[in-house]
């Protein structure tokens, strides 16, 4: 049996995501970074009680429309752009481990902020660097590490502090999820991945940061077509590959 990690649909790719799962959600926030179709599939599946990790808690659908309009003078956003906010807004998320749970400006109240005020979600606030390193530690089999970031601030919390080289350091623990849902550019059927530009970001970091990494990719190529010098994520970190549709599917409710 040749190795073939390609699954036929996004619904199939997330079929075994259970209520209460922890999920690393790739991307940073830009127009081509989120695993949008995997997010949509989780919304359709209506799985609940999720813990999500990632940069940003995301927007509701009306907020997304506003954001797209505001950004139009710089850049068009694709129709098939879905953010973790879709899952938050639908009440599927119980906890977020996030760097941007609420927006820096006061103008817009994102769904996560609303639910946090209502006591309906739990928040573990963490900076991007410690979050990325904790996920990388999970991939790397490192149980915990001392970082100079955080002592004396909100992110120290109850964590151990120890001094190295004259500076206090916080002990941060590896963060291994049940699933990573990420977006990549090219994949082969073994799960080797490349990314495209700034869409690499948390996607490459989260590959291997969980028991099951599911990669939503622009293109599936033949085994051997990826330059072995340029593979960013080697095959063992990836368990499933699913290819984005050639035509954008703009309603998340549409099975695909």
């Amino acid at each position: 049996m040749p190795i073939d990690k390609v699954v036929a649909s996004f619904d199939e790719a997330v079929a075994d995501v259970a209520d209460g799962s922890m999920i690393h959600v790739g991307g940073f926030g830009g127009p081509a970074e989120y695993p949008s179709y995997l997010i949509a599939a989780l919304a359709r599946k209506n799985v609940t009680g999720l813990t999500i990790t990632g940069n940003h808690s995301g927007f509701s659908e009306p907020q997304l429309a506003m954001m797209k309009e505001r950004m139009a003078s710089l850049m068009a956003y694709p129709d098939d752009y879905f953010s973790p906010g879709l899952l938050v807004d639908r009440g599927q998320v119980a906890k977020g481990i996030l760097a941007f749970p609420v927006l820096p400006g006061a103008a817009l109240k994102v769904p996560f902020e609303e639910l946090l005020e209502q006591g309906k979600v739990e928040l573990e606030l963490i900076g991007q660097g410690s979050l990325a390193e904790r996920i990388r530690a999970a991939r790397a089999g490192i149980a915990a590490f001392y970082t100079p970031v955080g002592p004396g601030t909100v992110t120290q919390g109850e964590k151990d502090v120890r001094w190295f080289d004259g500076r206090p350091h916080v002990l941060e623990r590896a963060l291994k999820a049940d699933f990573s849902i990420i977006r990549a550019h090219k994949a082969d059927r073994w799960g080797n991945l490349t990314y495209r530009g700034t869409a690499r970001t948390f996607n490459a970091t989260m590959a291997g940061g969980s028991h099951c990494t599911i990669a939503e990719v622009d293109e599936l190529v033949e085994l051997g077509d990826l330059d072995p010098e340029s593979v960013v994520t080697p095959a063992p970190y990836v368990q499933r590959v699913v290819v984005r549709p050639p035509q954008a599917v703009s309603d998340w409710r549409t099975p695909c």
Partner: protein
Amino acid sequence: MSAPRFEDKPRLDESAMAMRAAAEIKEGMVANLGFGIPMLISSFVDPDAEVLLHSENGVIGFGSVIEDPARADRYCINGGGQPVERRPGMSFMSHEESFTLIRGGWVDVTFLGALQVAANGDLANWKVPGKISGALGGGQDLAFCAKSVVCITTHQTKDGTPKIVKRLSLDITAPRCVKRLVTDIAVIDVTPAGLVLREVLPGWTPEEIQMVTEPELEIPGGVVEMAL
């Protein structure tokens, strides 16, 4: 502390503050541009100067913001989601490597917004009063680990309250990290001996700057006009 508002006096707008801040970037430096006003800086860096602009989402060596949607590149954006120019010598990296670069001390200077800065360099910039939580982003890693932190901020809040304070009343981002403040009316250095006024916007006197600044400013003979 309450402070006069000097409503009739000139103030730099966000672009002008970014322009002044851009002068802090010397050729050869690795400079990180944080979320908010700092993102404007890339458009004021001399395009012929060789500086390595870094953005925490995983790109180094990019250029100015692309203002024309027809030329926008959704695979080359800064930390604020704006498309930026590709330049020779640039490279992309994962988020973990982007913060390896930050945490490891490879960033020469970072520009961050501020809600409050204390006389000892303590920075508060992540949580707006009244909000249930805030936006830590990548700013805390940068504030703790960049070799130099320059804050760009209005000198006062909209109601006139000084943002430069004796002690923070807002939630701290990182202690004793700010080295320089570029505000809409002055440039101030944080030194072991306290705050030192370096530059004043034309139309203001050093004494007026002191009136809208809570801690005492050292006002040396060499205070000059802010030049853009």
